[in-house]
Every structure is written in structure tokens, then in C-alpha cells.
């Protein structure tokens, strides 16, 4: 593949001229000398009109503070995403908050045992309202390698927005999951594989538990796992 390098053409006379005009107009605008109709047009070119909802979604999605919720091996990979190699500080997510009051997003990294589930649910409830959850790793999404008595998939007691596959997922996979959550919050969320392949009817609707007792440890109220897109849309 032959790479040819050519010198950038010096800015032609007209370009320099146009740049000069732009500078002068900006100076007049600052001094307030521009007549109002021209000012109206000047402002119109520069201000982006948007709705309040989209502005809030833009603000929220670009600075989600994850709550440090390291459970098991995925926590070590989660710890490495603010590191120097894959720095999610570029997207505004590196402020890991320890207390749920200051966090927007709960990254469930690791396996949730039946003893830990009521605690995870309480911390999710204690987070403030526009909150999202990412279930990182196979153990959290579907009990992964250990399909036994001790684990609970996070879907059973938490509305999960993004599932990140992998055991443990690479830091890049988690970053991709976070960016997918960001796109979902901004409204233009990528439609999941069900819509893309019209796999209607394969949604997993978790039935209501057959034994009463809201947070009896062994059995969980099936969390409000309606269509996640709708969950975050409401926030």
C-alpha cells in the first residue's frame, strides 16, 4: 500500500479573507454593534435547539458515577478499567463512588450468592432515582459456571439494563457495555438481538415466585424485569 505525502496547500487568499471576516464579526458581536436581525441570524447558526429531556439524558449519560460493587473475579477486571490502558475516564465514568447515595450506575461484577442478594437489592434501592445496573460477567447474568444452590442470577431480583458476557469479560467488553448503556440512555439505544432478528416470543418472562415472603433469603420476588429499555426510558 503506497503512502504518498503532499504538502498542505498554503491557505489561499480567499480563505484567509473569510477567516478575517469571521473574526471581525465576532468582535462586533461582543461589542454589541451587530444590528438585531443579523444578530438573530448569528445566534441561530450557533445554538443547538433540543428538548429538555434530551439535554438531561445527554448530561446524565455522559457522567454516570459507577458504584464500586466488587463481588468476585469480575471486580478485578472492573478495577482495571479506570487504569491507564483502557481509561473510561475518557467517557466520564471513572469516579467510582463507594456509597450508593452518590452513584448512578451499579456494576454488579461477580457472583451474587443467596446470602448477598438481599444486600444487593437494598443497595440498589438506596441508590437515587435515575439509576441503571450493568450485570458484568456470566455468573451475574446467568449463574455462569456454577449452576448450583448457592447463586442467584441478578435478573431475579434486579432490573438489569446491560448484560456483559464473559468470565471475566475483558475490560474492553465492559467499556463496550457501558457505552451501549450510554447510547440507550440517550434514547437511540441499539435494538437488541431480539428486535434485530425479529425473534419475537423468545423473551424470558420470569414467573412470579410460588412461595410468599418478599425478601425471604431463599426465594426472590422476580424483580421487575420488564423490557429494560422501558425501565431506563422512564427515568
Amino acid at each position: 500500500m503506497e503512502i504518498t505525502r503532499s504538502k498542505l496547500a498554503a491557505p489561499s487568499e480567499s480563505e484567509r479573507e473569510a477567516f478575517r471576516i469571521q473574526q471581525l464579526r465576532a468582535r462586533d458581536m461582543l461589542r454589541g454593534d451587530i444590528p438585531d436581525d443579523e444578530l438573530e441570524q448569528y445566534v441561530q447558526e450557533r445554538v443547538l435547539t433540543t428538548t429538555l429531556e434530551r439535554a438531561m439524558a445527554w448530561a446524565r449519560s455522559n457522567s454516570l458515577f459507577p458504584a464500586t460493587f466488587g463481588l468476585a473475579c469480575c471486580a478485578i477486571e472492573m478495577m482495571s478499567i479506570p487504569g491507564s490502558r483502557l481509561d473510561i475516564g475518557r467517557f466520564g465514568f471513572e469516579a467510582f463512588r463507594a456509597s450508593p447515595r452518590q452513584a448512578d450506575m451499579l456494576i454488579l461484577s461477580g457472583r451474587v450468592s443467596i446470602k448477598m442478594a438481599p444486600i444487593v437489592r437494598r443497595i440498589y434501592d438506596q441508590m437515587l432515582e435515575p439509576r441503571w445496573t450493568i450485570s458484568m460477567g456470566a455468573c451475574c447474568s446467568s449463574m455462569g459456571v456454577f449452576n448450583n444452590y448457592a447463586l442467584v442470577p441478578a435478573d431475579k431480583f434486579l432490573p438489569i439494563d446491560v448484560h456483559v458476557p464473559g468470565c471475566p469479560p475483558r475490560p474492553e467488553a465492559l467499556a463496550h457495555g457501558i457505552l451501549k448503556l450510554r447510547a440507550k440512555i440517550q434514547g437511540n439505544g441499539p435494538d437488541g438481538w431480539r428486535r434485530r432478528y425479529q425473534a419475537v416470543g423468545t423473551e424470558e418472562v420470569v414467573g412470579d415466585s410460588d412461595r410468599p415472603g418478599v425478601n425471604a433469603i431463599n426465594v426472590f420476588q422476580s424483580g421487575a424485569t420488564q423490557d429494560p429499555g422501558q425501565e431506563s426510558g422512564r427515568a
Partner: protein
Amino acid sequence: MSTGLSDYRRQEQSITYTAEATGEMGLEQELLTINMGPHHPSTHGVLRLILTLEGEVIRDIKPVIGYVHTGIEKTAEQKSYWKVIPVVERMDYLSYYFNAMAFCSAVEKLLEIEVPKRAQYLRVIHMELNRIMSHLVWLGTSCIDLGAIGVWWYCFREREAVLDLFEMSSGQRMHTRYFQVGGVIEDIPAGWAERVRRFTRTMRTRADQYAALLDRNEIFLQRMRHTGVVDQRTLLDLGVTGPLLRATGHPWDLRKAAPYSSYEDFRFKIPVGTEGDNYDRYRVRHAEIYESCDIIDQALEGLPEGPHITPDRKVALPPRHELATSMEALIHHFKLVTEGFRVPPGEVYAPIESPRGELGCFVRSDGSAKPARVHMRDPSFVNLQMTAAAGRDTYLADFVATLAMIDPVLGGVDR
């Protein structure tokens, strides 16, 4: 305040909240029993400690564990022998090569197969790289607890370098399942040895940088010196092994005491502390990084040629190209892939030296292709009992440093 006990606490009725404060009881302040609970930034995992505080001084500690209990030992009983390795690796998730090594050496002892020299050397190299990585993650997270966040970024930069080496040799960053019963799955790719040599060179200079960062930092020294001291006799009675025991001056290291996997071929020293306080624990682990680099260099020089896995076809899969030609290879392959190899009945306990202490794997086989019982004696599970001895009558701030120096990994504790 919730006057009646919440239903969660009713289930924990048996956890007594009365504080048997044992220190001298100058009770000018009321005792407060509070949870340094499962979701806490400085408990290095989901460990819950019921602390009884008198002002800032801790009077009593009751550890409560089990919040990440995954029933690994029960799952291991349902799987055939070579499927147990990925399950067991996820136990102590910072030293996965050691879990696999403990299980493989126990099964190899049962089968009485001889691991070829090259495989033993490769295992030593990977284990020592894993020891460095585990110490780096410990140093990084401990320094976050002490407020020095900058050290965390440096440690995780080195950790990425180690994970690149693991990925190059086995294809995966963590839980690589590189060790197989009888040796290692694949030989190392070309150029891997050279990259490891380059890594050990830079690792030594980086370790010097950590020392430069921390050893003359007055705040770090004052917080670590003479805090969390536990004498050697109490540690031995509690069953504590590893850097915590070596920090009190007891040079007990299974790599030297009972060498396995050809550790006797390498010359390395065992760093030992004097007083057994937090600073010695930090120095012991920090010096172990240099020793691991020496072991890796010596192992790379002396890496013998030869098979990377036992030639015994009853245990190891035959290479792919042999399947096309020889019928026996096809039969062995089919037998191993469907049912797995059978292990003669018996019980074996194989201890090795993991970054946190003695990691022993007890395997009982009943002759079938599935282990009848797999128990891992996890060092963190036993070392965690010294929190009460180390934390009583100390300040809460010092106890955070002590907990960081105990370096519990809760995956191994709760199995």
C-alpha cells in the same frame, strides 16, 4: 429508627450484638456496634466485620463471611476431572494458576504420573508471574486504602503487562486453564521467553519505583510501623501461613521446605521480616516480587526441551495431527473427551505455596471419572481469623491498614 428487628436481622438472631469488650474498659464513651459490612470500599471483597467501637478504638471484631459462597466444592463433585480445573481456578481469583496447580498436583499424585521437566519449568514460570500479579493487585488496592491512589495506577500498569504474557501463552487474561493434569495444555509460543525476560527486567526497576514512592513517605511509614502487630506464637496457633507468618521472622515457605514442581533447581531467598507489623508484611511481599523475578529468569535459562505434557495417552489428549493417522490416538481421544480419565480410588492432600500462604488441595476419588470430594485449604480462609487478634484495641484507621496487609481474597475464603 427501625424499632422492631427487620426481618433480615431476625434471621441473624443468633449473631449477638453484645460487645465483650476485652481491652481496658475506660468507658468514657458508649460502645457502638456497627457493620464494616459486605459492601465496604476497604474490605477487599465482600467481608463483613461486626466492629464494637469505643470512640475510635476497636474493642471487638466478629468476622462474618459467606457472602460470595459459590458452592465450588459441590460443583467440582459433579464434573469429570479435567472439567474441574476451570471451576477450581475461579476460587481464589487472584492466584488462579496456584488453584489449578494444587488440584493438578493432587490428581497427578493419585494417578502417579510423572510430569515432564519442561512442563514443571513452565508451571513454575507461570506461577511466579501470577505471584507477581497477585502482589501488584494487593499493593495497588492497599495503597488506595491508605490514600495513595497514584501507586494503584502504576501497579495496574504492570499487571496489564503480566496479563499480556498470560494472554500470549494461553489465550486468556484471567482463569486461563493453562495447567492440565499431567503438564500444560500447549507449549509457549515463539518469542514468549524473550518478552518475559524483558518484563522481569522492567519489573525490577518498577518495584524500585514503588519502594521509592512509599518507603520514604512519612505518612505511609507512620501508618504502617508498629501497627497490627501479632506475635508469632498466636499466628502459628491460628494456622496462619504465608507472608503474614514470614513477616514475624518464621521462614516457612513450602517452595523451600517441601519443594514441588522442580523448585529445588532454583536459587532464591525467602524474605523474612523481624517484628511482624504492617510494615514488615509490606516489605516481605515487596521483596518477594524481586525473588519471583529471579526464579523466572533462572527457569527461562534452564528451560529444558522435551514434551510439554505427559506422553501417557490415558491422561493427556493426543496431538491433533496424530488423530488422522493412528487408530489408538483416536480411541484415546474419544475416551478422554467423552468420559475423561478414571482415577484409582484413594485420598490425597497436596499443599503448595500460594501468594497468601499454604494452599492445599484434598482430593478423594472413588475410582470413577468424577472426584468424590475436592476440598481446598484456602490460606485466606484461615488467615482471616487473625483479624480479631490484630485489630483488638487498635484505632479504626490502623485496622484498615492491617486488613489491607492481611490481603484476604474473599473468593477463596467463601469457596
